[in-house]
């Protein structure tokens, strides 16, 4: 197994993400339905499918992410469109021009994505959003690479942390977004965005590992 993969060969990522969203559409909408408006699965599938169709054959990893980001920003609306849109656009920007994507590049992609979400959405850890998945996931990835783990190993650590982060949202009170109107009543269920974020990170990790 190598410690990097060819950017040029990574264009399949968006189709895989779209497949994951389709598989989990009803699950995501169900979670959103409990304390939101029940459309998260629909929103995600709509955006990712649209993007998957637009990604050209032979697109690179960064090009695929750029198309995904642009599609989400331009066509989905709501809060998720711009948030995940800027998320993927930021990842694309970090990978642009890179020939081999390695762990440091991937770490900078994650950090840029997080920064974009924070700048736009202003949510903090504990607010019961996708940030609760993203923040520990990135920390775990960097912690792993910093302590000598390989790219694949670090991706596994990231996915595990993402899952724990996602699970942590169950006991949180929503502070931003639609479900914040429920106050204490928003406790007891997972956050939909945190769940889709975990799915995105897990799918991406699996995809990357197969490229190494």
């Amino acid at each position, binding site marked *: 197994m190598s410690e990097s993969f060819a950017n040029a060969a990574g264009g399949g990522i968006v189709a895989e993400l779209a497949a994951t969203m389709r598989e989990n559409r009803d699950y995501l909408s169900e979670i959103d339905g409990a304390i939101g408006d029940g459309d998260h699965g629909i929103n995600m599938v709509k955006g990712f499918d649209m993007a998957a169709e637009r990604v050209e054959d032979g697109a690179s990893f960064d090009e695929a992410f750029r198309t995904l980001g642009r599609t989400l920003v331009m066509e989905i609306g709501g809060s998720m469109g*711009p948030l995940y849109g800027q998320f993927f656009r930021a990842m694309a920007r970090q990978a642009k021009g890179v020939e081999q994507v390695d762990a440091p590049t991937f770490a900078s992609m994650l950090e840029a994505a997080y920064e974009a979400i924070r700048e736009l959405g202003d949510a903090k850890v504990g607010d019961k959003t996708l940030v609760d998945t993203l923040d520990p996931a990135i920390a775990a990835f960097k912690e792993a690479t910093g302590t000598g783990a390989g790219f694949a190993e670090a991706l596994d650590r990231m996915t595990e942390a993402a899952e724990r982060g996602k699970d942590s949202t169950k006991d949180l009170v929503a502070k931003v977004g639609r479900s914040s*109107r429920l106050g204490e009543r928003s406790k007891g269920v997972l956050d939909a965005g945190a769940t889709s974020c975990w799915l995105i990170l897990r799918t991406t990790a699996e995809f990357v590992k197969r490229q190494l």
Partner: protein
Amino acid sequence: MQRIINDPDRVVPEMVDGFVAAHPDIVKREGHERVVVRKDAPVAGKVGIVTGGGSGHKPAFVGYVGRNLVDAVAVGEIFSSPTAAAFAEAMRAADGGKGIACLYGNYAGDKMNVKMAAEDLEDDGIEVKTVIANDDVPSAPKDEREKRRGVAGEVLMWKVGGAKAALGGSLDEVIAAAQKAIDNTRSIGIGLSPCTIPSVGKPNFSIEPGKMEFGIGHHGEPGIKVMDLVSADEMAAMSLETILPDLPFNKGDEVVVLVSGLGATPIMELYIFYRKVHEILTGEKGMSVYRPYVGEYFTSLEMMGITLTVMKVDEELKQLIDLDCYSMGLRQEKLR
């Protein structure tokens, strides 16, 4: 769900189709299927007035496209922000060469999407400035005004901004007038029943019979308190007691008052409520009502409830409020 729809996922595009078919004298659809544009837009040499937001608030937002009002609107899904692309298209359609004033409400999604649309336009050399309405008093304390939601006061912001642009104001002047309008405006809502987003199919929250939510938001956001239902007169008094000290409004002030139903409220009840608002303002509060608006101006699907908006006016705002206008939701001749 007792409703007049086809596919719950197609209520917005079908509504826009119907709207454009019903008002060919006022609007057209241009460029983007979720953008509704004033028939004669862009008006050369005029600042373009743009707004947008989630659907389900009729007449807002498309109902305010028209002469001396809004030039283009980005239409979102029910209670969900329009896309950045729709905002960008609306801005482009409204561009008459003097810049774009995007006057919209303080919601997270709208802010993000407007921001990205504006960046897009600016890349093309078109100047975009914004005013973010935050007239809803109950949604945050006074020292966190920047967190407050925009509600029915947006109608007055569009009226003022639209009039300033129509009278030849520069982008900065239009922005200043619209900002002054919203800075001088305070609103509050009372909810008596929930509403149901068609694609969701169940009520978005619940209110027990005999109770009301005082300070509710336009999407059912929780208010100051859930309390026993009181009389229309008490609702009027409580609402005024909450919003008047916030500006504050003072004795001698001239005000514009806007009372809107939330969708299911019989129109006669809006007048019963206005009766007391008028009596209190012009009586014990010693103010005068420069112009009242009573009707359905900013709704929440089929929610039962009412909102009260009060704007303090000076000579400039009076002139702008008085300008005639013609849209689906607001048609007015000069009062004086």
